[in-house]
C-alpha cells in the first residue's frame, strides 16, 4: 500500500516535471506564436489582440501557472492549422494509435517469447546464433525503410495488401470503440474484418520488428539467468523433460522481466507510431504530430507530446504496481 502511494506521488511529480519541460520547450520557439495564431489575413492590430489574449507579455511565471490551470481543466490549446481545440481532435485519434500499438505489442510477444525460449535452450548453438542475429537485425532496421520495402513488394509489386490507410474507401461500419478490429467484428460482416486486417498487416509488421527483437533478446537473457540456477540443474538431473523444464519451471520465473518487456515494447510502439503513421497515412496521434511539425503548429506538438508522455507514465505506473504485486522483493527493496 505504501509502495503504491509512493509510486503515485512520484508519478504525479514526474507528470508535473514533464509539463514544465514541455512548457519550457514551447517557449524556445523562435517564431512569434501570436502571428501564427492570428493567421495570414491578420492586421497588426489583430495580432496585438491575440498577443494580449494569449497573455504573451505576462511574466513567465504567470504564463506557466495559466498553462497548468488550463491543462487541469482539460484545455490543451488550439491548433494553429485547424483552428480547433486540440482536446476535441485527440479523442478521435487515440484509438487508432492504440490499436496499432496493441496489435504490434501482442504480436511481438506471441512470437518473441517462444523464440526467446527456444534460443535459450541451447545457448551458443547454431539455432541460438541464428536467432540472435535475426533479433539484432530486427532491432536495427530503420522503420521508415522497412515500410518502404514492404510497401514496394507487397503493395506495389504483388498488390496483395493496400498501401496505406485504416480501411478501404468502399467499406463502412459503425465505429463504437474506435478500434476497427472490434468494430468490424461488431458489424457482423467478415468482409469488413478482413479489410481491416489487410490494412493492419503492413503497419503492424513494420512496427513490431523492434519489439520482437527486443523481446527475443530479453527473454533469452533472463531465461539464461534462470536456467543457471540450482533448481533447474536439479530438475534436469531428476530427468524431468526438457520441455517441462523450459516452459513450466524456467519461463515462469523468467517472466517478471516480461512485464518490463511489455512496458518497453508499449513505449517503443507509442513513440515509433509517430513515424509509422506518417508512412501509412494512419490517422492517429503520431500523424497528428508529424503534420504539426511541418506546419510549425506548436500547440499541437506540445499537446500531443504531453498526452503521449502522460499515457506512457501511467502505463509504467500500472506495470510497476503489477510487478510489485507479483514480486514482493520489489516493495521491500525500494
Amino acid at each position, binding site marked *: 500500500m505504501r509502495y503504491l502511494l509512493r509510486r503515485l506521488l512520484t508519478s504525479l511529480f514526474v507528470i508535473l516535471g514533464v509539463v514544465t519541460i514541455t512548457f519550457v520547450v514551447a517557449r524556445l520557439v523562435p517564431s512569434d506564436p501570436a*502571428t501564427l495564431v492570428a493567421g495570414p489575413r491578420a492586421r497588426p492590430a489583430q495580432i496585438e489582440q491575440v498577443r494580449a489574449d494569449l497573455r504573451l507579455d505576462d511574466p513567465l511565471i504567470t504564463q506557466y501557472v495559466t498553462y497548468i490551470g488550463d491543462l487541469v481543466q482539460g484545455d490543451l490549446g488550439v491548433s494553429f*492549422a485547424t483552428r480547433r481545440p486540440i482536446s476535441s481532435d485527440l479523442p478521435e485519434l487515440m484509438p487508432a494509435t492504440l490499436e496499432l500499438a496493441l496489435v504490434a505489442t501482442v504480436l511481438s510477444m506471441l512470437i518473441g517469447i517462444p523464440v526467446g525460449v527456444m534460443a535459450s535452450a541451447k545457448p551458443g548453438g547454431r539455432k541460438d546464433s541464428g536467432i540472435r542475429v535475426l533479433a539484432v537485425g530486427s532491432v536495427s532496421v530503420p522503420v521508415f525503410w522497412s515500410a518502404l520495402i514492404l510497401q514496394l513488394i507487397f503493395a506495389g509489386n504483388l498488390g496483395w495488401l493496400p498501401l496505406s490507410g485504416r480501411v478501404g*474507401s468502399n467499406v463502412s461500419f459503425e465505429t463504437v470503440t474506435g478500434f476497427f478490429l472490434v468494430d468490424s467484428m461488431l458489424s457482423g460482416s467478415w468482409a469488413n474484418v478482413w479489410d481491416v486486417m489487410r490494412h493492419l498487416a503492413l503497419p503492424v509488421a513494420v512496427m513490431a520488428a523492434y519489439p520482437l527483437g527486443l523481446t527475443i533478446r530479453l527473454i533469452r537473457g533472463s531465461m539464461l539467468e534462470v536456467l543457471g540456477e540450482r533448481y533447474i540443474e536439479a530438475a534436469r538431473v531428476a530427468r524431468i523433460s526438457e520441455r517441462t523444464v523450459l516452459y513450466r519451471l524456467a519461463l515462469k520465473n523468467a517472466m517478471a522481466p516480461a*512485464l518490463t518487456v511489455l512496458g518497453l515494447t508499449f513505449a517503443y510502439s507509442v513513440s515509433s507510431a509517430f513515424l509509422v503513421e506518417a508512412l501509412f497515412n494512419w490517422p492517429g496521434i503520431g500523424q497528428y504530430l508529424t503534420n504539426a511539425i511541418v506546419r510549425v503548429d506548436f500547440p499541437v506538438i506540445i499537446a500531443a507530446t504531453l498526452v503521449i508522455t502522460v499515457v506512457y507514465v501511467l502505463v509504467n505506473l500500472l506495470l510497476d504496481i503489477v510487478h510489485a504485486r507479483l514480486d514482493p522483493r520489489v516493495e521491500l527493496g525500494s
Partner: protein
Amino acid sequence: MKLRRLIVIFSVLTMVLAACSSDSAETTVTTDTGGTADSETTSGETIEPGDSAGSTHFVYANPFPVFDLDPSSSFSSEHVVLQNVYETLTRFNPPGSSEQLSGVLAESWESNEDATVWTFNLRDGVTFHDGETMNADAVIASLQRSLDLGLGASFIFFPIDSMEATDELTVVFNLAYPAPMDLVMSSNYGAYIMSPSAVGEGSDWFNEGNEAGSGPYTISSYTAGEGVMLSQYQEYWGGWNDGQIATVDIQLVEDPVLAEQMIRGGDADYTYNLPHDIYGSLAAEGSLDVVRGQSMTNLFGMLNHVTLSPEVREAIVLSFPYDDVANNLYGGEGSRALGIIPQAMWGADPDLAVPATDLDQAASILEDAGVSDLSLTLSYDAGTTEQQQIGEVWAANLATIGVDLVLEPLTFDARWEIQQADPEAAADIFMMFWFPTFVTPYDFMFSLFRSEEFAFFNLGYYANPDFDLLIDDADAVSGVDREAAIALFQEAQEILIADNAAVFMLDIPDVGVMNTEVSGHVPNPAYTNVVRFYELSR
C-alpha cells in the same frame, strides 16, 4: 497465468477508455486516404461515398491547405473549392476557344466607347443554394462586400465609381477610368456572387463551412486542416445528367508520396504538384492520364528589401542558375522567366533584357561592397520537390563564392505567416509561385510588388512609388488601349529588373494527373489547378 490475465485486463481497460472518449463520432466512414470524413457536418448529413469503380464520387487530392473560404476575401488556394460552389458573371475560356469569354451569371454585356460604362444582362432563373433568387441587387451587394472588406482581390474593383441595378436583371457599372470589366468579372478571386442573405455575415461564418453560392455544388462539410466535402446542388440552373459527379472530396494531402500512392491506388482521382520526374511513370500507368495545360504560373524568389542591401540583392540575382534549372528541372518543360509576367500572358516581353548567371560578377560585387561570410535564408515549400531541388542547386552555386544559403522548408501557411509578421525575422529569399487572379499583368505586379502598408503578398517588402504609379496608369489604360498598357507594363517590369526586386526563376509547366475513367476536364490557365466537377463525367 497471472500475466495473461493482466494482458486481458489491460486491453479491456484501454478499450473502455477509448470507448468513453470516442462517443462524439457515431457513424464514421473512413476512406483509404486516411482522415475521417467528419461527422460534425454543418448541415447534419453523413457522407457515404459509393463504390470506387463507376461511382459518382470524386476525390481531389489538394497539396495546399484552404485558408479562407470567404469568397470576398479569399486569395489563395481556395479557388479550387470556390470555383465550384460560387459563380461569377463571366468566365475566361480555355486556350483555343473562339471567344475569349463566355457568360455564366451574365448572358450578355456591353460597354460604351471608352469602356467607362458597362452593362451586364443577367441570366434569369438562377437561384442560390439557400433558395434566394440571383438578381442585380444580389450582384451589387456581393461586389460591394468585396470592396468594403478591402482584402484579397478587391483591388480588381478599384475602377468602379458606382453600381446600379437598372432593372431586375441588369447591372450598370460606372467607372472612374476605363477598365475591361468583362475580364474583371471572370476573375479567379473576389468576383463571386453570393446570396443577399449572406452578405451581412462575417468571414468566420464562411470559415465554419457555410456558403451561399449559386454554383453546381454545395459545401456539405469543411474540416480545417483536412478538407472540404461538396455535394450536388439539385436546383442548379444548368441542370443535371446521368454520369455527372454527385459528391466531391477535396482533401488536403500535403505529402507528395501519399498523393502519389492515392492516385495510383485509385483513392484519389486528381492531383498535381507531384515531383516532375514521376510523371513519366504515372503516364505509363493505364488507369491514369497526365494532363498538361498552358501555364501562366511564374516561380520566383522575393528578395527581402529590409534585410538585404541593393548590392547583395544584385549579387543574389546574378548567382541563380537560370539555365540549369530551366533545362533540367521540371522535366525541362518550363522556361526561364522573363520578368514577372508569364510568357503565355498578354503583355509579356519576349525581348526583356535579363541577367545571365555570372558568379564571378556576383563575387566581385560582394567584395566591393565589403560583404564577406554572407549567410542567406531561403524559405520554400516543404512538399514541393522541385523547390527543394532548386534550393540545393542554388546553394551549390553560392557555395562556390563563399555564400552560405540556408534552406528552410515549411508548409506554405507557416512560412507565409512568418514572412508577413516581421521583415527582420523573415527569410532573406522567399520562394513562391503566382497564377492569375484575372488575366492581366496588373494582377502579378500589383499583388506582388506594389508597396503595401501591411505585407500581404508583397513578401519582399518592395516599395517603389514610381513603379506603383506606372502600373496604376497601365491598368487604367488597359481598358481602352491595350498597346499603351503593354508598353507601360513592360516599362514597369524593367524597373523590377533594374531594382533587383526578386529573382525571376521559371515559368513552371502546368501538369496534373487525372483518373482515366473521368472525362471532360479541360485545363484553363486562368483558373490554375481548378477542376470543374460539373463538366466531368465518369
